[in-house]
């Protein structure tokens, strides 16, 4: 699984990091940082939680 974050759409709600703190990282202002590489299998559900928590729908997993 990969995580794609649309940086133009991210508006800094920081809900992804609240839903899955071990997975999503934020910059100093609270905007989501890109996620590189594959999501470890045991974190796939957390990734989907982060995706569905985004008010802007800026996150896609798959």
């Amino acid at each position, binding site marked *: 699984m990969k995580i794609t974050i649309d940086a133009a*759409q991210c*508006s*800094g*709600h*920081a*809900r992804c*990091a609240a839903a899955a703190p071990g997975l999503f990282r*934020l910059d*100093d*202002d*609270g905007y989501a940082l890109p996620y590189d590489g594959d999501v470890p299998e045991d974190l796939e559900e957390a990734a989907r*939680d982060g995706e*569905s*928590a*985004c*008010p*802007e*729908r800026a996150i896609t997993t798959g």
Partner: protein
Amino acid sequence: MTTTLEPDGTHDGVAAYHFDNRLGGPVLSHQNRWDEMAAAHSGFRSTVARGHWVVTDGPAVQKALQDWRTFSNKSVTALDPDPTFLWIPEMLDPPVHTVWRRLLGHYFSPKTVAAREPEIRRVAGDLIDALKERAGADVLDEFARRFPTLIFMRLMGLPEEDLPTFLDWVHELLHLSHSEDPDGSRRLAAMRAVSAYFEEQITLRRSAPRDDLLSHAMAWTVDGTPINDRDMHAFCILLFQAGLDTVPISIGWALYHFATHPEQRREIVADPSLIATGVEETLRVYSFVVPARKATRDVEVGGCPVRAGEMVMLPLAVTNRDPDRFDNPSEVDLRRKAVNHIAFGSGPHRCLGSHLARLELNVAVEEWHRRIPDYRIAPGQDLWQHGNMYGIKSLRLEWRG
């Protein structure tokens, strides 16, 4: 009483109503009316004053908020398309808006805000401790309005003894009905007083900078130019207007909700880990902010043929209570899986203070229920909510006897 709108003909082929969002109504009447309007229309025309458009399709509201190129923040008041005042950064568009948001971002980021949590918790706890031995109180005046205002004043570096004055100004500026202030003179007088207050605070810091947000902001540059006193003033007015009433309103709704839903109250008391979702759900269900934008070009949105320069109202309640986005949208669900609401707006103008507001709200609900776990709405009140931003006017709760 009914709050259903009477039709007022059509405008460019779209249903028109005499819809005046400034008017107050019984608790939840505005939210319920948005549900009705959203079920019947994707958009309509309000015939109040010069008229404006209102979008009632959930996805269209959000898309418009995200599309800052088409929907400008030059005016954010549906009835005032050409304001003579400026609030910074809210009434700026990118790219200047982006510069301000970057400068401010750090002060309101999740990390910076989290560092203040112990202090925020202490302020809330002290206020509730002072109430818990009493039989009851007007929880808006005695807690919900004081707590976030004190935090705001500390953040800005303003003297705490000015708290009562601040609360009076907020009341005079934002809470007067038409009959209380028919010619708007009380509101104007308060506006002038707030303006003079911040002018004085800015002058004080120009001569002797301190370690507070105001002083720091005065040292910033936008496009290489230091921020002048006029823009500094526009920034202070925004923080006052946008930042001072919204958290009190949210705390009021949370306490109203848990007073009227005792089973859910018992659940969060027994398991405080449910509070975080409970807070998000009250923000969503009681959505009280109604943004507006000014069209930069002719565009169709929610079926409305909007012309360049016209105002478009974008009620957040419509997206947050959209049955296509949330199951049982008008119910607070303490275990809802995805609560991706837009109570803090959407797009580049997402509420700058959202992380602070969210923390204050969680702390308020946690500390309140730790001290006052059992309470009810005091009998004999007509619970009423203001127009514009739908906050409960006054809320008396009782917890003894």
